[in-house]
């Protein structure tokens, strides 16, 4: 999974710096390479809501989180590639790597 972390957030809570065309071109590359499993772009951070359940079962819902954390998850791709080097290459080509960073994590294998 490529987690697209944006660190430059504009007023609307979207990632700054890359054009829609950049993203469309990258998306097409991923599709054409036949490695796409799934992927989503997340809506602006202002629309986010956080829920926590305490030990006694009480539910707390809060607006946010707002970006006290410098990097915010902006979207993700799940791709099927043979190894980490291949995943890192795809991550490096992702437009999000240029004004933020991409965290690459394997999907857990439970032996199934």
């Amino acid at each position: 999974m490529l987690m697209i972390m944006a660190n430059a957030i504009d007023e609307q809570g979207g990632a700054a710096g890359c054009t829609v065309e950049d993203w469309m071109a990258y998306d097409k590359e991923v599709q054409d390479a036949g490695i796409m499993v799934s992927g989503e772009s997340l809506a602006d951070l202002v629309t986010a809501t956080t829920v926590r359940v305490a030990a006694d079962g009480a539910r707390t819902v809060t607006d946010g989180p707002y970006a006290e954390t410098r990097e915010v998850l902006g979207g993700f791709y799940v791709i099927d590639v043979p190894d980490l080097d291949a995943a890192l290459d795809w991550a490096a080509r992702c437009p999000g790597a240029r004004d933020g960073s991409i965290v690459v994590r394997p999907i857990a294998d439970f032996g199934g």
Partner: protein
Amino acid sequence: MDERPGTPIASVEAVFREERGRLLAALVRRFGDLDLAEEVTSEAIEAALARWPVDGVPPKPGAWLMTTARRKAVDRLRRDQVFATRLAILRVEADRADPVPPPDPGADLPDERLQLFFTCAHPALAAEDRTALTLRCLAGLTTPEVARAFLLPTATMAKRITRAKKKISEARIPFRVPGADELPERLPGVLQVVYSIFTEGYAASSGPDLLRLDLAEEAIRLARILRRLLPQQREVAGLLGLMLLVHARREARTGPDGELVLLEEQDRLRWDAPMIEEGTVLVTVALTGGPPGPYGVQGAIAAVHAEAADFAGTDWPQIVALYDVLNALGPSPVVAVNRAVAVAMRDGPQAGLDLLDELAAEPLLRGYHPYIAARADLLERLGRDSQAAEAYREALDLAGTEPERELIRRRLAAIERGGS
């Protein structure tokens, strides 16, 4: 039965140090799993230790070890079907990315260690894990030996190695040699691992002994393997040359009581002349046929020191010029400190001190005792004894090893005697 000292077993094990890395790399290549490869490598070597003294050494020892290890791996896979299935999937996918080449019929055991070097030095691993894994998998050290080398408890080192192997397996760090286009980006990482093993051995960052020669020698051994595997890469030649030239001074670097002897006071007759010669040839290779890399230039600096009859007679203008080249390749405050010392030798202590004082605000040099000690030395040469003593006291608090502290104490005592 007989417990004679120096039974052949120990020497046979030493012979296997080299074989172990080769065997491990070949098995990793075949099975794509480091744990399995390590397990059956050890079992095959144990079998050889039991059988060879009785049956005699087979005509192709490498092939014998490989066959034995492979048979043990197949047994293990038969016993553990779930593991086998998972591994089979991994293999198919890895082959898709990077097919296994047909074995070279002429070789007793194919040398596939290069891919293991790149895996162990992969940038996705923590820096300290890279050195530990390289020593474990390629230098053939046992986990307690690696732990001792880093002055860590065995359990801590075992945990570190397990963590690194887990990352390799679960994040699927591949066993492959980067392509020609990636090599310039990835090779420095491998060289950095080898050099950090060397520097840890050469000037141990902590502990009672200044020199941990075994680590320095392991690093040289690793660099020799790399040099054979990558004969075209001039920076590999540069790194090996640099380490040989520095290591050639090992005997002269400490006095009879283990105290540190500075370059200036070393008995140059105790330098290892054949090692210097070998290092100088390698540095020449590193500097020929293209722009120099940082190891080649550092090697050249060591070579200029090596050819000087004494400290004062060193070609200091040449050393300063080489530091300028090094700084152009990758500016660093540590290089700037060394350059300032060379300038002091070329133009006098005040010129060097001026340069050092310009670096005072550099955050990376805060707490870096060679910087403070270099300032103290130049202040002393200028006769500014009280300032020199103050700087030595500061350096004393920061120095990591006992011989380094002892040297600073001696300098401090000399000033205090002279001054009063």
